[in-house]
């Protein structure tokens, strides 16, 4: 590409955003949803949508935040599917009169994270794994900073019972 080709500039900006953000997003969303493949799929699709609209997205204050928000929408769809699956399993267990043991505290912090409500899981993953600030988490989740702090406090309190045990 020629140096003065606007497509080249667009591509350079996009490439830089991809290099900086791709793996941190995949890591945090994989922790949030518990599935690396789902996280990679969501992030790659989000970058594709950004690439098609890059001239507009590049002018945003936080293009990576837009991409992360699109990927999170995919992850939330996955949460809804998982919820339907778990409810179906629970209904089946009830129908077969299976004795349900009280849940034990998971030994693994990610397993405990998986038991949290989706918003707490996502907020905790973005904050602790990707290292985003409260404001950046709020931008990505399209929530107020107060709502993000609420979810983070709740997630921290739930996870503390595992981390705090010897």
């Amino acid at each position, binding site marked *: 590409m020629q140096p003065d080709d606007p497509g080249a500039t667009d591509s350079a900006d996009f*490439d830089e955003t*991809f*290099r900086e953000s*791709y*793996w*941190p997003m*995949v*890591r*945090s969303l*994989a*922790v949030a949803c518990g599935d*690396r493949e789902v*996280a990679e799929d969501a992030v*790659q699709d989000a*970058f*594709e*949508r950004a*690439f*098609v609209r890059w001239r507009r997205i590049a002018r945003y204050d936080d293009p990576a935040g837009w991409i992360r928000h699109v990927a999170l*929408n*995919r992850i939330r*769809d996955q949460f809804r*599917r998982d919820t339907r699956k778990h409810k179906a399993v629970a209904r089946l267990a009830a129908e077969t009169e299976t004795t349900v043991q009280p849940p034990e505290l998971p030994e*693994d*912090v*990610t397993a405990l*994270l998986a038991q949290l409500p989706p918003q707490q899981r996502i907020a*905790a*993953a973005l*904050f*602790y*794994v990707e*290292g985003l*600030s*409260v*404001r950046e988490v709020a931008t990505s989740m399209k929530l107020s*900073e107060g709502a993000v*702090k609420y979810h*983070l*406090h709740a997630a*921290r309190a739930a*996870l*503390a019972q595992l*981390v*705090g045990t010897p």
Partner: protein
Amino acid sequence: MSDDSLGFEPIDDELRRRLGAAGPQSGDPDAVLGALRPRYHRARRRHQMVVIGGSVLAIVAIVGVGTAALTAGGSGARNVRIPAANSSVPNRETTTTAPPSPAPTTPPQPSGDTGAAGGGTGGATAGSGAATAPTAAPAVPVTRTYQSNGGSVTVKLDNGALSIASTNVASGYTEERHDTGPDRVEVRFKSDKTEWRIRVDLVNGEMVEETTQH
């Protein structure tokens, strides 16, 4: 790294360490981007073709409406901005720009564009109005059904937003909803051996469908 306004606690470092270790190992982003680049460029070309195709369709629609109005005029006047006295064909463009006199006041225009839109200021107004019409969201909801071997999806476009109205899963397939709008819906139909994906994007106010097999 933690936001001071959250209230730092020692547990934050431990959570950061444990959750960070739970994530997948990072790889080479350039290698990933290199593998994805052809797919991204194909998506961009499809998007550009749809935008160009939408503009062409809009021009064809303008010419078609103008030609129909000319044909229905009957008096031989080429100025479709001015309804003929004996014409019963409504011209929607004249609702905003029709001049008061029923008689043609401008000479016939040789250009196809102005012939469709009429002469004088009415034509210019109609042209600009028609050029912007395709980008406006339809006033009433639109539903379309898209088929694949794995099932079908009925997509609704309402007030500039896409949504899934209903799906129909073929025998031997299961359904997964991967995107539910507002600017894209995607449903995947999976069997033991294959997967069909129906994806509909909202581009320039139009539904653009892509069905692929994986």
